[in-house]
Structures are given as structure tokens and as C-alpha cells.
């Protein structure tokens, strides 16, 4: 039987991120927001989550406000409601993701 022929990768494989060099926190927008703002990773110089939200609102306007409605903000994997809410401090290389309810198997 002929072996399967595999195509070249669809897109070049990106190297593993090296967030440790960053002096700022990262906002990881969800897909819809990323498409609107043209970025899938945004560096923001913010001391707290509230600060990050304010700056992102100022930069991206309604697109961002809409994206975080009924979403959970997560800092380094932990929901901000389980940390210090909007006062959760951020340090360089911290990642803040926007996540929404999901489900499946």
C-alpha cells in the first residue's frame, strides 16, 4: 500500500513564546476580538487587571468592551474572581486571557 503523502505545513511553525523577556503583561484576546483588532497578543503596561481593562478599552473601544461582557478574565490560568478581582496585580510577562463558557468532550 502506498504510504500517505503529507503536505507541507499550512503556516510556518512559530517558535515557543519567550515571555520572560517582556517588561509588560500580555492580553490574549479571543478570536473574534483578535480578528477585529488585528492582533492575537497585545503587550500592555498595566499594574492591575483594572488598569489593563481601562487601557484596552481606551485602545480598542467597543470591540474590547463587547468581548469582555460576560467573559471570565484569567491571569496566568486563574480567574480574577479567585484572585483579587480587578485589583489583581500584574507583573511583566503575565498573561491575561478572555474566556467564555464552553463545553463538549
Amino acid at each position: 500500500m502506498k504510504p500517505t503523502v503529507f503536505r507541507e505545513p499550512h503556516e510556518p511553525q512559530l517558535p515557543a513564546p519567550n515571555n520572560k523577556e517582556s517588561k509588560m503583561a500580555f492580553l490574549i484576546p479571543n478570536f473574534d476580538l483578535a480578528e477585529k483588532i488585528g492582533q492575537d497578543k497585545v503587550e500592555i503596561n498595566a499594574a492591575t487587571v483594572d488598569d489593563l481593562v481601562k487601557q484596552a478599552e481606551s485602545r480598542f473601544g467597543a470591540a474590547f468592551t463587547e468581548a469582555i461582557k460576560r467573559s471570565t478574565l484569567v491571569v496566568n490560568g486563574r480567574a480574577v474572581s479567585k484572585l483579587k478581582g480587578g485589583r489583581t496585580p500584574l507583573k511583566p510577562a503575565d498573561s491575561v486571557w478572555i474566556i467564555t463558557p464552553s463545553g463538549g468532550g
Partner: protein
Amino acid sequence: MLGGYMNKAYDINLSTGEIKDLHISREDRDLYLGGKGIGVRLLYDHTRPGLDPYDEEMVLIFSTGPVTGTSAPQSNRFVVTTKSPLTGAVVSATSGGNFATKLKKAGVDVLLVRGKSDRPVYIEVTEKGVEIKDATELWGLRAAATQAKFPKPYGKAVIGPAGENLVRFAAIVSQERVAGRGGVGAVMGSKKLKAIIANGKKQIEIREPERYKPFQKTITKYLLSHPMTGGILPRLGTANIVNTTAGRNMIPVDNFQRGTDHRAVNITGERLAAKHLEKQVGCMSCPINCGRGIKLNGKLTKGPEYETLGLLGSNVGNYDLVRIFEWNELCDDLGMDTISMGGGLGFATELTQRGMLQSELSFEDPSPIGKLIEDTAYRRGLGDDLAEGVMRMSQKYGGKEFAIHVKGMELPAYDPRGCYGQGLEYATTNRGGCHVQGATMYLEAVGPLSIDPHSTKAKPELVMLQQNLAAALASSVFCIFSSYAMIPGPVFKLDPQGPLYNIITNVVLNSGPLLGVVLKTKAPLQLLWFEKFLSYVMGKKVTMGDFFEIGERVFNLERIYNIREGFTAGDDTLPERLLRESTYEGIEGGVPLHKMLPRYYKIRGWDKRGVPNKKTLDRLSIRA
């Protein structure tokens, strides 16, 4: 006689060619319903302790439930039950597609296959009966080609080359769906059974059609309007989960070395839907259509589920969606479980990274994987090791601490360090490291309500509830996705940062003792839709209490079977990496299983060795 059943089951001996009626007592139907419940009962009763999964005497059971073949939403699934060659434990694997309905309409509830043929065969089931036919010309064909050989109206359950070559996680394929886990395809291959096909037009009797019909319309409408079953799942498929688990440090990265990687944004369900989705695909009579139809090499094919995106994506350093499409199609066509395949590849890559194995694999360049997937199905070179699964690979090469399996079954794509209850579920689920025989992570981290994933409070109770529910669903047979609509739609509109959300999640978190009482109470009500469907179809009242009790009974019988086969409390554990290594700032160590397991045993009615006590067995009317 009860409605829903065809009252016909067959015992097929491939060694002798004998086909005889298989009697399933009314008592067993009442206690176990069908599907997984009947499958486990038959496995226990028809095999002796210590039997090898590939032994001639091993049985392979294909079962349906009383609602199978009706138009009850999400009911067209079948269950395959046997002893797993991957784990040595009981395994029930379910699949969608159309085989379940066709089997029922051929007039059959259950097929029990035993023995071994000396040449490849297939089984044909029609209204006229069962025949064993020659499959010599089919042997060696991949799953799609095998299915294409049979007439279109037939429902089919087939194996590919992986099953023929006894890959320990070989699957059974039906249309584009798969009974994936635990190597059920390998047991089928060991019997030289290439396929089972079924066709018929018999009607399935619904005892109370005047109540059933409007109810079916009501529930279908409800499911279609629900944010999960009518929104997220049809729109994005199970792939919708990637963004959540990557955000929560729960997606496996580089063999579970990490829980997140920003590059996961390239393999999300949203990206798949926006850039590649051609159509939504569903199982027969399912209104949800969670399947993804994507174009690959110019033809429409099945897109990957969440598990495949995790295990053949981030777990092996691959963030290229099209590659995942290719490898997913390859695994399906060769007839292999993508979870175990991805788990094995992740493990082999880390072994290579550590210099414990010589291979071309690396997390920086996963391109050798495609060829290795084929090599696994044909047991060539390193593929021969991969075909044995992670547990056996670690016995050969070392690396036990990062061999990510439970009881020999490779873990799905939810890192339990991000959801402790799911960790307890992995450790105690009877078929091994599995997420769909409970899905506690839906309540902790993935779904609309996140019940503090890093707390151990109430988790034993939630896990028991979820496991009992899943076992009841698999015995009816309903798809587990239907249970996601049990959380009402308005909950999805809550602000996760708001006070009401916090109140609700805190109440649940502190409700452990109350939940424990509820779990022991047989509620005489009918609050869900599953028990109503069962009642209207069978013509016999099933309460919510009955429904959950059936699930609890089936779960305990599985446990008894495993104990009979040599499993102990020592097997209720997690890999060292997941117990010891933290992936969260401010949290030391991994899953605190030791804080949950004793309470779990207690509320289950088991002793400290994890053995169901006599009172529990008597209460559940389990004979063993």
C-alpha cells in the same frame, strides 16, 4: 413487555460459527436498562476472572438502549463493551453514526460476539437474522474503504489496519464517528472480525406515543434554543474548548509539561469555524450537529474534536490546524484513538528530549508524526512501541513519572492540575483516564459556572454525581452532550465577575454534605427529560431517582469487575507529574488527590480499600 426493546439478542461464536439467542432477563433490563449497563452485566457474567482480552473466550458486546432508534434527541448511539487490552480493565466505548439505529431496526438489541474466526469475517444483521460472512477481501482495508464496500443503507461498525494489527488503542469506526477508547477495535481484530453491518425497517414500539410525541418536540426545541447545545456546539463544535483550556492553563502542552501556550490561538474552534468549516455534521436524529465538516485535499472530511486538537496539537508541539486535520483523518481511517495516539507521541517526544529514546521527534518540529501514526497502525519501528501505549512504553524506556495515563489509559486534554475534581474523576473512572464518564471539568472550569477548580470542597460529591449520571446516560443510551443543557440558559448570561455568579458558585462549593444526602436519596420526581423519555418509550415510570440509581449500579458493577480482575485502590491515582509538579503561580504541587479520595470512597459506600461494601451492593441489587 416493555416498549423500546426489540427483545432479541444474539450470542455469536466465531470459533464454531454457532449463532444462538441470548437471553437477557427482565430483571436485568430493569436493573441495567441497556447500552453500557447491559454490556457490563454480560461481560461480568460471560467471562471468567483473569481472562486475556485477546483470548478466544473473551466477549465483545455491541448494545443499544430502549431509546435507541426512536426520535428522542441524541439517542442514536451504540456501546461496545469488553475487557481492554490497553488497561486490563472493563471498557465501554460509545459511538454515534447510524449503526445503532440500523441494528435496532434490524430487530436486535444486543450482539455478544465470542470466539475467534480462523479467517477474516464480517457479521451481517438483518430482519431475517444474523449471518457470518467471509471478509478476506476486506482485510487490510482502511476504515473508509471498508465501509464503502457495503451497501449504503446499512449501518456499519468496522475496524481498520490498527485493529487487525492489535494496536492496543485500536478503535471501531461507524460512518465518521468512532468508539475510540480502550482498544475495543483490537479485541474485534483479535477475533478476525472486520465489520458488523446491519439494516432493517422494523418499528420500535413507543408505549405512550401521545405523551412521547409532544415531549420530543418540546425537548428538541429546548436543546436548539439552549446556549450550549443550540449555540456553542453547533457553531464551533467541541473545538470551542481550546480557548478556555489554554486560558486556564489546562491544555496539555509538550506532554503535560505546561498548561498553556499562546500559540494555541492558532488551533481554536473559532479559527477552525472561520477559516475551514464547510458544514456542521450530526449523528442520526441529533439536532445539535456538533461535528465539523472541513475540506482537506479538496474533499469534505471530518474535522477534529477538542481532544484531537489538544493531544495531536499542543501536546506534541503542533499548532498547525491543517496538520491536525490530516493526522485526525489518518487516525480515523487507520482506526485508532486520537487521544491515546497523541498521548503516546507526547510521551515519546519527551523521552527523546531527555535522551531516553532515539527518535526524530521533537516538540520544536513535530513533522515526523504523520509517518509515525502510520507506523503505529502497522507496528513498524518505533510505531510498534507506540502501539503498546504509554504505560508499556514507560515500562520499557523508563519515564514513569511523566507517563501520562491512569490505569494504562492515556489522559484526555484536560490537565487536572487546573480542575481538581476532574483529577479525582480520572483516578476513579473504571475504564481509566477518561473524561466522558463524568465530565466534572464542565462544572469546574469549562462550562458557564466555574466551581473553584482549585478547591477540593464538594468535589467528591460532584464527581460521584457526574459519574452516576454519565453511566445512566450510557445505559439508556443518550449522548453525554445532552446533559450540558441541564444547566439552564440564563446561567450563561451571568457576569462571571459579578456577585450573583459568586454566590451561586460558593453555594455549590459548600454544599458537599447536602449533595452527599441528595446522592443517597432516591428522588421520586421526574425533573429531567431523560427519565421522561424512558418512561414514555418503555411504558414504565422511571423517576430521576431510578435513573441515577441505575447509573450508580452500573458504576459499582464495573468497579466489582475491575477488582475481580486484580485492580486495587493503588490504581486510583494520577501520574507523578500531575501529583507533584505545579503549573500555577502561588499553588504548590499538583492535584491533592489524597484530600479527596477517602471522602469519595466513603460517599460511594466503599471501604478504605475502595471495595464496595455489602450494604451498597445489597442496596443496589448487584449480584456478583
